[in-house]
């Protein structure tokens, strides 16, 4: 069974008198261990699609099955709980909690999962070491560079043992060298831990690295290419 399975997915915004379709009848399967980029111009529906996969938005029609669970009918609180245990998020603007240190930011997710203090601390240290920030654990986000903050965000996304990581324009705020280094890290984590990454991006650097590229246009899948031969794990 695919890790993420979307069938006949529709999203129509009814905020004005005229209904605006953002996603129209998408069928898609993403397998465990994929390193996939969803691309497309502004207004193509990639953010809406990503929001629905991430359980941040509900479809008007269709099914979203993540890890064998149909989340398309989940209510808001059930979705929050689902996100906490199944999905890791990396945002464009890092979005770390500014008053907490790098380690505390990573620990925070595990705190929400009611994990013991000792286990939280050990995992936070382990993850920050894995993203190359062993020496910056006690630094606050304001004391870190953009690239370092995004690395903390990656560590935070992995802290909850998610089924996959959704990264929304993760390199948009980074210079090219830092962006490449972040992609190296993500690729490394994908290789080492078989962690599934789904990106929404405009960035050619990300597109170049992705194994699978799903291109959206007007809320529909325009193309779905696999660059490298993807082996099922």
């Amino acid at each position: 069974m695919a890790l993420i399975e979307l069938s006949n997915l529709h999203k129509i915004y009814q905020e004005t008198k005229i209904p605006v379709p953002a996603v129209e009848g998408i069928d898609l399967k993403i397998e465990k261990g994929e390193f996939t980029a969803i691309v497309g111009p502004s207004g193509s529906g990639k953010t809406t699609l990503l929001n629905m996969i991430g359980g941040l938005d509900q479809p008007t029609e269709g099914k979203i099955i993540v890890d064998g669970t149909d989340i398309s009918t989940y209510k808001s609180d059930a979705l929050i709980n689902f996100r906490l245990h199944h999905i890791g998020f990396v945002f464009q603007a890092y979005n770390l909690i500014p008053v907490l240190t790098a380690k505390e930011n990573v620990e925070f997710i595990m705190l929400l999962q009611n994990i013991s203090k000792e286990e939280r601390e050990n995992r936070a240290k382990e993850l920050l070491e894995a993203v190359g920030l062993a020496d910056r654990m006690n630094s606050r986000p304001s004391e870190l560079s953009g690239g370092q903050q995004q690395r903390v965000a990656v560590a935070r996304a992995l802290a909850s043992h998610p089924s996959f990581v959704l990264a929304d324009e993760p390199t948009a705020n980074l210079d090219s060298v830092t962006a490449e280094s972040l992609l190296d890290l993500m690729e490394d984590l994908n290789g080492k831990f078989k962690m599934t990454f789904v990106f929404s991006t405009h960035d050619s650097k990300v597109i170049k690295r992705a194994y699978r590229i799903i291109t959206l246009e007007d809320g529909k899948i325009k193309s779905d290419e696999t660059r490298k031969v993807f082996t099922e794990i």
Partner: protein
Amino acid sequence: MLFLLAWKNIWRNKKRSLIILTAIALGLGCGLFASGAMYGMWDSTINAAINRDLSHIQIHSKKFKKENLIENYIPQGTELKHQIEKINGVKAVAQRIIINGMAASPTSSLGVYIKGIIPDEEKQVTSVASSIKEGKYFEGVGRNPIVIGLELAKKLDLKLHSKIVLSFQGLDGNIVYAAFRVAGLFETESSLFDKSNVFIRQQDLIPLIGAEPITHEIAVRLTTVQVMDQVLNKLRTMYKNLEVETWQQLAPELSVSYETLNFELNIFLGIILFALLFGITNTMLMSVMERIREFGVLMAVGMKRTRIFMLILIETIFLSITGGIIGMVLGASSIWIIAQKGINLSLFSQGLSSYGISSHLFPVLPLEFYPILFLMIVITAMVSAFYPAVKAVRLNPASAIRIY
């Protein structure tokens, strides 16, 4: 970590937090001091009334309470006095003869309560002896000394050593006239008391009324107010045929004012907190609006709405409690510092004395006031947090994370 996060969040915008903290601290500090001053005023008024003549407990015959007649005395008053003195918690006991009569000087006359006392005994129970402003307490005059209030002396145009004639009904029903000489002039906090009470020695009074020693009133002074109920119950069981009353029953107007004061002061501080509530809400609302994206992220990564609500609630409670504690320390220390010397209100003493209020004000606030205030602050914080917290939990994470 939620508490740590809440505490750290308060100090994100130091200037804003300090402004609201100062408002809370000053508002409460000044409110507490004003409450302390009001409390102190009533406290000293009641203490003055207790010291002046009420004492803690008084005993009368049941008939005397209905009709202030000379024949309504307490049987075996002296024996009772000795019994009461042995009760635990009793500091001193005074027997009084009380007769309604007239005090006349060559120029004028006035109705007064003539109080026949044993001076040394009375000194232990009430403060008339220490309120003497001119002359001495039953000294310096050969025969029939009398101690009267300065106010009465003014009304009757009397001076120290002047002669005063008292007239009253004796036990046999005949009117007695007797001349006394002013040995001392006293002045208490109550001009009414000073105008309407004269004190003479029982040894001078008893032969005049033509009887064996009688007692109309037994005044009991206790070691502390805390034992009052205990002693009262004991006296009531011992003397079922007599009227045993505490100062609260003897002066209900004072007692009611004192009891309602607590309520009034809580309302007063409640109004201050109510005004502060809007300031706190505004501060928290600004803080929430600045963090919309962060709340969106927290919800996106799996923080439940109840926890976000709790976070804002805890932040508001921390902020309010911090201000509240500073305010309480400010208020309590200003009360303590001012209470060392008191505030001299002698400029208004004439007006105050007509209400029996002391012209020297010592602010005081009972300790039980502080936990109530603390609770009120927490409730204010919770009410203040409600709107900003609801605003935060109603955010849609998908759109909130895209707000810059």
